[in-house]
């Protein structure tokens, strides 16, 4: 390799490094989700001006929708929210109901829905929307595997989000995670309501959220509960339950196991 070419490569590398560090050094505005372990893993909260991906299996679409809406509610901070979806996902998973959104404690007045016919127009609209700094968040909902959403498209969205400071949330239902430029990637499942009497209040949104990828921190898996009144996530609330009293005449098996390990 000639010297001139090597120096050209070096200068290009330097440029790329500067571009990338600029994005990293830029003090990411972070929004705490309310769930302390998840916030710790995310270094204080979900980064604004970035792309976050939420994946789920086909049958778990609504849990993922609830989670994405929760994230959007956290990051958008009273600014408008653009919800871009494909016609097909509405048939498969149902339409986003504004009454349901209001029940989650979010404000339906701020939601503008874009009903894109196909993936191309959805992607194009979202790139446009991410460049508009009047928005709080842009949610792009795609159903199934899509060829059109590749690394280039993902990079485009990330750049647009970095430029404007708008947060992009991708809801990928019935899709497998693929390499992308997203800041975080989640896999969502619905979690059971806490055990308790059948007639007791139940049904608050609970998510089994697995953080698959985190650019700036560790991953993890947590049960997160959405608190509709305070509009934030929280640790699963503990419900006091009658527990059988420990037998007084026998050794506590948990303690004995512990001692055995120490001895061995």
């Amino acid at each position, binding site marked *: 390799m000639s010297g001139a070419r090597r120096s050209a490569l070096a200068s290009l590398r330097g440029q790329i490094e500067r571009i990338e560090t600029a994005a990293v050094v830029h003090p990411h505005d972070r929004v705490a989700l309310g769930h302390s372990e998840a916030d710790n893993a995310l270094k204080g909260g979900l980064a604004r001006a970035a792309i976050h991906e939420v994946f789920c299996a086909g049958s778990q679409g609504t849990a993922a929708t609830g989670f994405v*809406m929760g994230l959007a509610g956290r990051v958008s901070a009273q600014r408008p929210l653009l919800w871009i979806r494909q016609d097909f996902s509405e048939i498969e998973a149902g339409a986003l109901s504004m009454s349901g959104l*209001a029940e989650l404690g979010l404000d339906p007045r701020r939601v503008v829905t874009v009903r894109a016919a196909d993936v191309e*127009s959805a992607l194009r609209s979202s790139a446009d929307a991410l460049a508009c700094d009047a928005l709080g968040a842009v949610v792009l909902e795609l159903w199934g595997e899509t060829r059109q959403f590749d690394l280039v498209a993902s990079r485009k969205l990330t750049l647009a989000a970095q430029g404007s400071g708008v947060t992009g949330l991708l809801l990928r239902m019935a899709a497998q995670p693929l390499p992308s430029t997203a800041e975080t990637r989640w896999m969502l499942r619905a979690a059971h309501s806490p055990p308790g009497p059948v007639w007791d209040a139940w049904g608050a949104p609970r998510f089994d959220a697995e953080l698959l990828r985190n650019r700036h921190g560790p991953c993890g898996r947590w049960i997160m509960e959405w608190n509709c009144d305070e509009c934030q996530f929280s640790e699963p609330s503990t419900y006091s339950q009658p527990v059988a009293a420990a037998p007084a005449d026998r050794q506590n098996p948990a303690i004995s196991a512990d001692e055995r390990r120490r001895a061995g």
Partner: protein
Amino acid sequence: MSGGAQDEPSIVVIKDNNALVIHALNEAAERLGLYIGQPLANARAMCPDLKVFDADVAADAKTLSDIADWCDRFTPLVALDPPHGLFLDITGCAHLFGGEAALLQTLVRALGRQGFAVSAAIAGTSVCARTLTRQATGSIVADGGEAAALDRFPVSALGAGEAISTGLRRAGLKTIGDVASRSPSEITARFGARFSTLLAHALGQGDAPISPRKPLPDYIVEKRFAEPIATDTMIAMTLSRLADTLIASMEKQGKGARRLEAAFFRTDGVVRAITVEAGRPVTQSKVIDRLFRERLDALADPLDPGFGFDMVRLSASRTEIVVQEQRDLDAHVHDNDELSALIDRIAARIGGKRVVVHLPEDTHIPECAVMAAPAQHHLAAAMQAEWPARAESEPPLRPLRLFDRPEPIKVPFAAVPDGPPHQFTWRRALHAVVRVEGPERIAMEWWRQGGKQLTRDYFRIEDAEGLRFWIFRDGLYEGEVFDGDGEPASPGWYVHGLFA
């Protein structure tokens, strides 16, 4: 009528009172003595080797409307006069084409080149001009000369109908001059007020307004080309120059455009009009430029220049007075501007009905509780809408995702007739019910649907996997649902939505 084999007698027939009669005919057929309205059998008897075509009234109307589109290049006020006439209001337009005579000549020649036989005339009133086209094509009558011009023409030229023409002839009034010489009261008493009004209009005493096909745009700018343009760059450049001119003329009156239409006139007579809308008045030419670029990019059938466009017209068909706002002090106003600009851009590309905001409706029926309205027009209303408040410290009572059409589920049995199922099959998967809440009974609005809809009992359900459903039984257990024989049947179950 379009030409073709001019020398062979050919006719177009239409069914009238169960008989085929001549609807239109060419000159060769006319020379043989055939006439419009003659039964086909008689015509065949007179001329056995007649070429006969079926009339297609819809296609005729389409052709007339296409010609009217083409005529838009002369004046924005073009009205249809079915079955085969057009009125053009050329007030104030003629000088752009070198005077009335030159305009008439241009129009007749251009249509003639496209294969149409045209008779045209210019007069002070529309009825007078129409009468002239039937007898003296190409004539131009100045204001006040109507009565003299029509004096010698037969009464049938007025087009008042067969009965009246015959009546006038029987009364010995053969020409329009004869009729005009009688006093109006006599004519009205014998032939009705409608005919006397028609006569008055033909003679230039008063005028019937024409009804143009399109409302007159508030502002029009256009560009004509001696050499037709066809390339995308030229089209884009023309549009942006026109936008500059349009904005300049609107600015003088403090207006902004809400709806804009670009019309592309192809050399072969085809006209393509493209409309864009804006949520708030547009006052910058670069915004117009961008909206059209988005729209042109996203057209399902792209703009086909063919042999080129010889004219491009940009018109603002809806405008509003622009209120100058103080921007810097109120960031909120600025944000809303940006949002509506974004909405306009997306709407220009994918259609205004596909970008929606949501308005609450005052009803209990879940699928009707929210109305989606185009964001371009209802953004402000949606931002201020009053939504019903949620109950504090309750889990969500309405699902996050709602199916447009509730999906039927299979329920094997219910332990209690009125109660919820223990398990159900939805989309071929079996769900075991772990927790239930309900029923929430929602009765249909009898005053709206004519009492045909059934009462629904909704249950919130959690299955063994933690998925939460909103299911309902369509109809009360007894007394609402009947099978074909009128016997009580068991009501159906549906999934209507899913909770997060």
